[in-house]
């Protein structure tokens, strides 16, 4: 197909994403922040939609978190990544899909570095061989898991049980989409829509019936920034970043925030509690905060999974107002029940932010 005019320009912002044959690598921190997200990515894409996505129990962190915190050199991160590629080769896969945005950025950065400096790639091959007696092939495609959910958004919409619509008024829910910085700000041509018009989450929201909010600080960082948070003396920067975003989005009255990064949902969620304790201000209606969801959690809600199975009780900000608007059925008494309905006790409540 020959594209012309605006269509041609927009085609340059697209990304080729094969439908099948993916080797899945998990995030090192998401499973403790949002424990069910990765499980439900596989449940939706592999089990429900029948896509070929393979996961090896032998894979590790990509090293990106340590690399961005300046605790390991890039060569070490490269050797870790080379081992993941070797596992992918041994499993017979050629496409790599990552759960984490920083992993996606890390893999992309390393592949681009090797393209520019082939001698470095040769040295990493030697390092990997000496350390593990493994060899690797570079992946044909690298995608983030949100790219795949974006690709399958139409199939998910066809199977939707709930839509992003207020069931009482019929109004499309106003959704803020926040894209992790390492998705397309490092290598714009590797993301859907590039760095200027990232469409990966907007596409999902629109397909599932919601309305995307455009607000002044839409592309501002969530505030995680690795050392901004990890060094306690810098945490003021982190929370100030998040505060700036909330102040900017507040006039648009968002019903929810959707993100595709491990750090963003965590900080947009938890910092709402910290801001409420420091300033006495909450950003949702009725003293609640604005619920922050990962794209897998939102897809899970749309597909009708139980919100407590999706791990939504792990969020600091209560998700019940959003569930009520969407018309999602849930048992309030089961919120803090563990496996096999075991009582795992309720957390303490904040003094300002309304939580349930």
């Amino acid at each position: 197909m020959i594209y012309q005019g605006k269509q041609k320009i927009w085609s340059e912002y697209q990304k080729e994403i094969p439908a099948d044959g993916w080797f899945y690598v998990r995030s090192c921190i998401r499973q403790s922040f949002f424990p069910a997200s990765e499980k439900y990515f596989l449940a939706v894409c592999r089990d429900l939609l029948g896509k070929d996505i393979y996961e090896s129990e032998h894979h590790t962190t990509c090293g990106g978190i340590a690399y961005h915190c300046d605790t390991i050199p890039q060569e070490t991160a490269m050797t870790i990544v080379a081992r993941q590629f070797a596992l992918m080769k041994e499993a017979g896969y050629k496409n790599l899909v990552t759960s984490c945005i920083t992993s996606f950025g890390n893999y992309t950065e390393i592949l681009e570095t090797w393209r520019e400096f082939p001698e470095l790639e040769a040295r990493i091959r030697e390092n990997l061989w000496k350390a593990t007696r493994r060899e690797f092939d570079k992946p044909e495609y690298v995608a983030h898991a949100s790219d795949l959910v974006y690709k399958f958004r139409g199939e998910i919409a066809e199977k939707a049980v709930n839509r992003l619509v207020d069931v009482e008024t019929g109004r499309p829910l106003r959704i803020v989409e926040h894209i992790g910085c390492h998705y397309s700000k490092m290598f714009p041509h590797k993301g859907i829509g590039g760095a200027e018009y990232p469409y990966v989450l907007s596409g999902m929201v629109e397909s599932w019936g919601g309305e995307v909010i455009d607000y002044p600080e839409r592309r501002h960082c969530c505030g995680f920034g690795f050392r901004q948070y990890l060094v306690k003396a810098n945490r003021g920067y982190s929370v100030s970043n998040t505060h700036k975003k909330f102040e900017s989005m507040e006039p648009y009255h968002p019903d929810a925030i959707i993100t595709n990064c491990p750090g963003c949902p965590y900080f947009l969620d938890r910092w709402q509690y910290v801001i409420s304790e420091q300033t006495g201000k909450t950003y949702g209606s009725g003293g609640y905060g604005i619920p922050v969801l990962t794209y897998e959690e939102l897809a899970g809600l749309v597909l009708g999974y139980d919100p407590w199975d999706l791990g939504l009780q792990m969020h600091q900000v209560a998700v019940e107002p959003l569930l009520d608007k969407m018309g999602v059925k849930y048992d309030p008494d089961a919120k803090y029940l563990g496996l096999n309905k075991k009582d795992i006790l309720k957390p303490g409540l904040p003094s300002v932010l309304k939580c349930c």
Partner: protein
Amino acid sequence: MVDFGFGLSKSSAVRLDQVDLSLYRKLEVLEPGVRTCMSCGSCSATCTAGPWSGMSVRKVILNLQRGKDVSAMMQNCMLCGKCSMVCPRGINTRHLILSLCRIYGERK
């Protein structure tokens, strides 16, 4: 309120619909040429006092347009007038500075 050991920094965002432009408006009356400034920075580049004091006519105008106080920077101007010689818009920058000093003098 909980003490977390860290806090919010004051935002540096400028909300143009909320800033106080009274100083700039007064300056416009005394030196209308200020409206023609295109922030090229020629004045700052040629400023004798700039390298050691941070004086910059461009910053003075920009800060006034953002409703900020510029009195500290004004004290560094030596009124040499080099900035007015290089201004491509022909703004009488020395008169601009003196007018501002007058406005600040009236405020005391």
